């Protein structure tokens, strides 16, 4: 018998399904709540896996800011909507052999199921790779799913339909109390509730039968643990579970809204393996080939469980699991889809052992969601069964205290950890504990400070006592530190303990000095003292097998719970550190990941070692394959300094990761850290409003008049000077949005009273607001003040819509030559004056040829990937080379030579944000974007609007057109609609205006009027398939008719436009172009 030698047979050269030569992959489109950057990561991994096999890859994804839509990642890239119509067109053209549906989130999955049902795959002989579509359908259809799991005796959450109180009672008896009662077919949860016993059930059922003839009785699992497993299966039926995760927040809070740890912390061996065995039984029975996620509800006082759901695709959790373990789930799933067995693939961390194994972690990770609810008007802060968060962070460490404190800093909402934060105002702690909001973790901190026992907190929150014990440890440690008043008096042991429990130097200083200013000053002294005591973090590797075998891994984190580094440093100054962008949030997301990845690529191509620091598990930049070293860690001054001192790099790049790294410029510079590119002093000169303003004055460049004011009288006299409307930016926000436009004295007064608290300490900045001005942006790269390349783009909307929400056309289609000339001239002057080296962005207002500068950022902006990809000239690559000190040639290519147009459009997630007013304003509200290319302006507009979920209306359109100005904006569009045979419904003002202009329309009444036809009714009954509702003034009123119409459009899934210029562009686009004739061209076909 031969001695086994498995290592030489790990990777066969040919795919077992060698008939597959070309594969189409569906992306997930724009980032939205519930579907974000994780699918850029999954898709990029899948494309890499296919490429390795020599397969030609075709990608459909309109999200132009992603890494997967970069040159060379896929062979053909289509910036088209991921809808059955467009996907079929691409299939018809490209004739792929296979298609991958599970890497583009729910969007790709739904689209794939539709195409399967309509026979498109069969028609074009496209093989669905990986999990069969029927398995997907079995997991998506609730009834099929329950039946399927019944077949293998796996428990699911079931509801029993009853039509009498007796039946309700026996149903409850069979399920076991407590139960949830829901009235069938009743909107808004009318008649629903919890019952703990028969009496409560009787009372509730009697009431509920008033709403509905049928009740659904369901076992209540409130307070149960929520546990997830990531399971992988190959076509030979080999299965592994790569990771399990436990939610800190018990059942009832969506897993996307929960703090989550991996691996599970409170499960015994018996429990862990019971759920693991079930997960494998499920994946086998459903027949998944690739990856799936199984979510369980798990009892807290027995081993009882229920399966909540199975996601037969890569998911947010699988991206998190990949980052938590180092096991590349998407990469492996793609290979399994091609027919490989798990045993034929290698562990991509060790590079020598097999992919058929289950990672052993020797650390704990903690995921914390990032919310941005403050950005939306009218939205509730309560969290529950639907997802509202826009991003997430992952902290790695070797104690729970360490990871939760790291994580709470990473979400970067001004918190320093679990303790030593700015005090929250919590009027009713009990309520805030039992009815969770996005701030609950800080309410727990407050409750501990007020003397709540953890048992009481457990009663109110149902959070497992283990987590609360650990939080209490942090609280107790803080209490010990507070007893000291100086750095010198703080005992060494306590300082070490605090660092092991995740305290930052700032937190410790704050606890010592009880003062924020003093803490900021003293934190560096504390650092010195700490270093002198040799209390330093150590660097540990993530190697998938807990050090069992040697592994060459560059995936690192820092911890104070250890005594030795895993890494040896060369100190040759050949590494360059790129700071990433942190958690995705409104205003900073995948576009900065693209910038960071491109900076890393360039650094490595030019012969340097690229080092990444970032902590966002949804990103490609935190894929350890993208760099020479990945520090999955904090982007704070303290942590960056720790890493700089270890790495001893040639320099740092701060300008590709958005605002978080930019904010560190001054403090890092002060410590002598070599910052590549524009100097910290120049960054400060652009960021500091006063310094920037006086520079513009010096250069003779115009800007909207503004003043920083600290009393109501001063504000009034400034407004007298500039006139309404004005833009008001408070430096301290009590509630609601940070910025607002006020059109008259009443609005101004209301805003100042409600939202802010004007004082000497908290001044507000008031700026003149120029109406009906065009907004223009320049993205550019300069070297020592000399502009190397630039891209000018123009907003479709007039100024007043945040540049992150605006629809952008590039190259500009409607600018005067003189405007362009002036913009170039100003750009050069600013670059020269600030001695810019690297990427920068300037925003302008233009009215006629009058140009004013609004702001200037000495870093890459949101639109860098868009302009780079449309122009086919990589701005980050050249910026990086400039920052590396290379001589570069100015490109000869100009945007004004392009024979096509790019449109960048914003994606909103209002349907996820109940009650939020879906209106655009000066504060950004979009969660993502797309970028589409067309041979002309309207084609590009049409593709981009369809990509963000708009649909071409079939027949009826509801218009309320707002102010006279917007009525005029919409006049041509309305006429065109009429000519095309659309029926226009209009509210009174619009109806009158249209009639005066000889355009027929049907008058509809406002929601507040009890007359028919009523606008709300039209929307609810789906009688209209497009709503154009332009707000009258710029302050959002929650209870206005306009709000109710807009909200109804969102709630009933009717496309909605709230900006007259964008609405007009869309109407023109679909009236002029026939969808059937839209050319299906890949990126490379636009030359």
């Amino acid at each position, binding site marked *: 018998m031969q001695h086994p030698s498995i290592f030489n047979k790990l990777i066969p050269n040919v795919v077992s399904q060698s008939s597959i030569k070309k594969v189409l992959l569906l992306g997930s489109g724009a980032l939205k709540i519930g579907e974000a950057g994780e699918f850029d990561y999954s898709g990029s991994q899948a494309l890499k896996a296919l490429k390795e096999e020599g397969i030609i890859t075709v990608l459909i994804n309109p999200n132009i800011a992603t890494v997967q839509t970069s040159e060379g990642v896929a062979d053909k890239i289509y910036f088209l909507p991921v809808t059955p119509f467009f996907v079929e067109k691409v299939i018809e053209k490209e004739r792929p052999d296979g298609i991958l549906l599970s890497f583009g989130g729910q969007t790709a999955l739904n689209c794939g199921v539709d195409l399967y049902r309509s026979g498109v795959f069969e028609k074009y002989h496209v093989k669905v790779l990986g999990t069969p579509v029927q398995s997907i359908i079995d997991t998506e259809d609730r009834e099929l799913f329950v039946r399927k799991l019944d077949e293998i005796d796996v428990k699911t959450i079931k509801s029993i339909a009853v039509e009498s109180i007796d039946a309700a009672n026996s149903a409850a008896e069979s399920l076991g109390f407590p139960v949830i009662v829901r009235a069938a077919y009743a909107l808004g949860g009318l008649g629903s509730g919890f019952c703990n016993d028969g009496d409560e059930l009787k009372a509730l059922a009697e009431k509920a039968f008033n709403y509905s003839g049928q009740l659904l009785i369901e076992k209540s699992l409130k307070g149960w643990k929520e546990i997830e497993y990531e399971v992988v299966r190959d076509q030979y039926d080999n299965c592994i579970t790569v990771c399990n995760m436990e939610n800190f927040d018990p059942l009832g809070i969506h897993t996307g809204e929960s703090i989550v740890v991996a691996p599970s912390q409170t499960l015994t061996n018996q429990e862990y393996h019971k759920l693991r065995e079930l997960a494998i039984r499920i994946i086998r029975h459903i027949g998944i080939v690739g990856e799936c996620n199984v979510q369980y509800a798990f009892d807290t006082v027995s081993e009882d469980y229920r399966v909540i759901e199975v996601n037969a695709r890569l998911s947010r959790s699988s991206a998190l699991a990949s980052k938590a373990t180092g096991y590349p789930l998407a990469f492996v799933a793609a290979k399994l889809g091609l027919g490989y067995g798990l045993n034929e693939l290698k562990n991509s961390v060790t590079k020598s052992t097999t992919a*058929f194994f*289950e990672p*052993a972690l020797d650390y704990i990770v903690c995921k914390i969601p990032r919310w941005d609810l403050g950005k939306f008007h009218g939205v509730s802060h309560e969290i529950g069964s639907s997802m509202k968060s826009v991003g997430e962070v992952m902290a790695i460490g070797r104690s729970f205290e360490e990871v939760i404190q790291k994580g709470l800093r990473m979400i970067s909402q001004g918190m320093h950890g679990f303790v030593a934060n700015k005090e929250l105002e919590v009027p009713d702690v009990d309520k805030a504990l039992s009815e969770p909001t996005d701030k609950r973790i800080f309410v727990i901190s407050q409750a501990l400070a007020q003397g709540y026992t953890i048992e009481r907190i457990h009663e109110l929150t149902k959070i497992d006592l283990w987590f609360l014990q650990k939080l209490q440890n942090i609280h107790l440690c803080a209490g010990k530190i507070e007893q000291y008043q100086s750095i010198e008096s703080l005992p060494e042991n306590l300082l070490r303990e605090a660092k092991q429990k995740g305290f930052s130097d700032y937190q410790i200083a704050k606890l010592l000095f009880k003062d924020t200013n003093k803490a900021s000053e003293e934190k560096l002294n504390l650092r010195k003292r700490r270093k002198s005591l040799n209390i330093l973090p150590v660097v540990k590797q993530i190697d998938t097998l807990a*050090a069992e075998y040697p592994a060459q891994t560059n995936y690192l984190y820092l911890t104070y719970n250890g005594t030795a580094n895993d890494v040896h440093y060369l100190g040759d100054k050949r590494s360059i550190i790129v700071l990433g962008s942190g958690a995705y949030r409104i205003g900073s997301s995948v576009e900065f990941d693209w910038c960071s990845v491109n900076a890393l690529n360039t650094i490595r191509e030019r012969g340097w070692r690229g080092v990444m620091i970032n902590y966002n598990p949804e990103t490609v930049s935190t894929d350890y394959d993208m760099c020479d070293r990945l520090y999955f860690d904090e982007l704070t001054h303290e942590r960056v300094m720790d890493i700089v001192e270890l790495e001893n790099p040639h320099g740092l790049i701060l300008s590709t990761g958005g605002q978080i790294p930019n904010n560190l410029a001054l403090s890092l510079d002060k410590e002598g850290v070599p910052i590549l590119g524009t100097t910290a002093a120049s960054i400060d000169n652009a960021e500091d409003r006063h310094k920037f303003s006086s520079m513009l004055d010096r250069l003779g460049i115009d800007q909207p008049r503004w003043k920083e004011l600290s009393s109501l009288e001063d504000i009034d006299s400034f407004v007298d000077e500039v006139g309404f409307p004005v833009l008001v930016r408070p430096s301290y926000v009590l509630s609601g949005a940070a910025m607002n436009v006020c059109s008259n004295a009443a609005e101004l007064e209301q805003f100042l009273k409600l939202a802010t608290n004007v004082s000497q300490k908290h001044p507000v900045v008031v700026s003149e607001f120029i109406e009906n001005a065009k907004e223009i942006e320049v993205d550019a790269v300069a070297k020592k003040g000399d502009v190397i390349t630039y891209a000018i783009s123009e907003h479709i909307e007039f100024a007043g819509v945040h540049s992150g929400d605006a629809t952008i056309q590039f190259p500009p289609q409607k600018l005067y030559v003189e405007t362009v000339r002036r913009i170039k001239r100003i750009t050069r002057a600013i670059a020269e004056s600030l001695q810019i080296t690297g990427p920068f962005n300037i925003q302008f207002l233009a009215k006629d040829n009058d140009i004013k500068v609004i702001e200037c950022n000495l870093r890459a902006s949101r639109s860098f990937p868009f302009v780079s990809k449309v122009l086919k000239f990589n701005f980050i690559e050249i910026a990086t080379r400039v920052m590396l000190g290379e001589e570069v040639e100015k490109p000869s290519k100009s945007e004004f030579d392009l024979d096509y147009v790019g449109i960048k459009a914003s994606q909103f997630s209002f349907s996820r944000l109940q009650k939020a007013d879906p209106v655009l304003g000066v504060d950004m509200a979009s969660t993502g974007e797309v970028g589409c290319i067309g041979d002309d302006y309207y084609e590009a507009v049409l593709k981009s609007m369809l990509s963000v979920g708009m649909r071409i209306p079939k027949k009826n359109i509801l218009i309320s057109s707002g102010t006279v100005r917007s009525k005029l904006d919409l006049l041509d569009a309305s006429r065109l609609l009429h000519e095309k045979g659309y029926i226009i419904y209009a509210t009174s003002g619009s109806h009158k205006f249209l009639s005066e202009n000889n355009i027929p329309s049907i008058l509809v009444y406002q929601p507040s009027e009890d007359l028919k036809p009523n606008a709300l009714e039209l929307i609810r009954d789906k009688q209209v398939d497009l709503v154009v509702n332009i707000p009258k003034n710029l302050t959002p009123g929650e209870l206005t008719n306009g709000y109710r119409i807009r909200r109804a459009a969102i709630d009933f899934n009717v496309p909605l436009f709230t900006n007259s210029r964008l609405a007009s562009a869309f109407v023109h686009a679909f009236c002029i172009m026939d969808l059937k004739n839209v050319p299906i061209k890949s990126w490379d076909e636009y030359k």
Partner: protein
Amino acid sequence: MDKKIALVLENGVIFEGFSFGYEAPVAGEIVFNTAMVGYPESLTDPSYAGQILTVTYPLVGNYGVPEDTIVNGLSGFYESEKIQVSGLIISEYSYQYSHWNACKSLGEWLKEHKVPGVYGVDTRELTKLIREKGSLKGKIVFDSPDEIDFYDPSEENLVAKVSCKEVLYYGTGSKTVVLVDCGVKHNIIRCLLQYDVRIIRVPWDYDFNTLPYDGLFISNGPGDPEHCAITVRNIRKAMETGKPICGICMGNQLLAKAGGASTYKLKYGHRSHNQPVKVKSATGLFEDGKNGEIREAGERCFITSQNHGYAVDIKTLGEEWEELFVNMNDGTNEGIRHRTKPFFSAQFHPEAASGPTDTKFLFDKFIKLI
């Protein structure tokens, strides 16, 4: 503040930590396990006798320890009657615990069984040292490094120490299984009792050939199989009857020895829940494929729980035997079978506890044979 204590290694390296268990020095072989759950099971596994265990997962003690009941020498929750490890080394200790079936903390349990525990150790660094040095002797000391001598458990017959001292009976089923206790994990007994069997548990050196039985089961156990020459002789005698034999872990090594093979000490012992093994044999036992367990040999893989420092040298195995399972990481032997007779064994732990349950079906296979 807990007492500051130290872990001293034979190569002179010292790790400082804090005591959370019994306060008395101890010496032994230091081994690591990379499992993320299952400390009550691991600590009571007799295969750990003579060893100081370090757990690579840093957070330990989270769910406390369940109250145990022992009926007729069979524990309700644990793998034996007591804690078998000589000492426990961890990174982060959960003083407080949270679980519905816990009755005490890990520290209290260690104290009860007079086993020292150290927390605050960089267990990843320690694991790397053990990995590089192969086997590593060490001691947990409280006041001075010299208060106890190093101890090499491989020199001792640990099986004799942990095996039962008298014959024990379980179950009332129709078939009789003789279970040779080399340090049996109780979950093996629990797994067997799920079938229609009666178990006669005998000490490691008991001549079971005098007993009437239908199948023979050889358990796991600690240390070097060289010490169990008596058991090997008894197995060899049993093989002549042609009655089914199954072995686990030490049982695999003893069956292999009975079949003429030799064993050796591994550089990196296998102590984890994530050991991948694949089916090597293409014939015989697993051909039926009826339970959907084995379809194509070589493509069928399992994640297994393991705890052993010695392995069968497959090159030395007799002609009439073949390799049944192989480790996918290092290619070492994970099980053998006889080509014609109903004898087979696994180096891993199909009974799990702690660890994954993928290979529990091996018990089915054994029972079907008898």
